[in-house]
């Protein structure tokens, strides 16, 4: 059964796009067929992690949503971005959002047909025989986010150890429960090494009555990389990369 995973956070800048790309890499390393979709139409960024430059970018999710192409035509095989070793193991597709100002403002002005998005995802899963569809979202709770939460088999909610994030997550967990998400997992990101991980995990799990799938450390090297690549490829032994691998293993085993 193909699995749809939404990667979301209540507040911005928690590490959603980086986690989406790194998790995709780990899943491909397990021999899976994976697609990542940038549904953050208002502020797209996922394509950057796969080194797709703006000149290279042809058709996008926006073109599909406004009826200018099929969803397959806006989907790119980016397996080679993972390096020759990983590329031999599985397959990775990317469905980017447009970074053209005129396209972004059109979405903000007109919105788009939400049912079209669901149908497109179904088509993508079928055509490319996907095992996993990862959805990178816009932070906060808007109509599209609610929809991607609703159609997800697994919702990964990212939070930082920060009181503002804690409050926002409480709201999001409540919404996810109301939408009857099958599997809800929390990921704590940007955790300082000096924090006691065992007690942090317990605290968060108890507060939201939701399992913490992974605790990922804040990493200076990751900041330095500045989304110019996929960290777990360049630094596979770093605790962040190990944490993402553990998360991938849980995702695969939960299917």
């Amino acid at each position: 059964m193909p699995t749809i995973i939404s990667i979301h956070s209540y507040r911005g800048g928690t590490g959603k796009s980086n986690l989406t790309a790194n998790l995709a890499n780990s899943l491909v390393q397990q021999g899976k067929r994976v697609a990542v979709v940038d549904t953050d139409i208002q502020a797209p960024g996922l394509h950057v992690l796969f080194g797709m430059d703006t000149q290279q970018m042809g058709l996008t999710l926006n073109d599909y949503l406004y009826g200018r192409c099929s969803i397959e035509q806006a989907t790119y095989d980016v397996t080679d971005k993972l390096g020759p070793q990983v590329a031999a193991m599985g397959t990775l597709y990317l469905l980017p959002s447009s970074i053209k100002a005129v396209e972004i403002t059109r979405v903000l002005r007109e919105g788009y047909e939400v049912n079209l998005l669901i149908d497109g995802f179904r088509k993508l899963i079928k055509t490319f025989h996907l095992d996993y569809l990862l959805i990178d979202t816009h932070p906060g709770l808007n109509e599209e986010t609610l929809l991607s939460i609703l159609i997800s088999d697994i919702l990964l909610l990212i939070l930082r150890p920060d009181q503002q994030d804690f409050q926002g997550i409480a709201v999001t967990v409540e919404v996810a429960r109301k939408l009857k998400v099958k599997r809800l997992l929390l990921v704590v990101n940007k955790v300082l090494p000096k924090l006691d991980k065992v007690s942090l995990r317990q605290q968060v799990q108890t507060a939201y009555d939701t399992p913490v799938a992974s605790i990922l450390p804040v990493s200076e090297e990751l900041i330095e990389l500045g989304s110019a690549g996929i960290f777990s490829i360049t630094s596979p032994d770093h605790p962040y990369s190990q944490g993402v691998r553990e998360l991938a293993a849980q995702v695969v085993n939960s299917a």
Partner: protein
Amino acid sequence: MSVFDSSQPEQHRRDDVPERTMAEVLALPHEARTIVTWLVRQREAGLSEVAALLEQDEATAQTLLTDLVAQGFVQEVLNEGEGQPRYRVRLAARRGRQVPLDL
């Protein structure tokens, strides 16, 4: 509560009731929300499947579905050659605005 007389013809009703948003799905009572969220994932289902989902008899499921149709969350689809209607969710195309958090 539906503002429409249930004796109104189907076609008329569908045109008059606006499509619903995800935020409105969130505000539905438990049983209705169970049907709508499940229907989004299923894409389409018949009465007997909805009754099975709710673990209720078909008459109870029919009452809930009729109400959801009247409220504009769900629409009936009649496929050719099938006597029984099937049900689908009606969601509006909406811009990416924030949902008012009135939980």
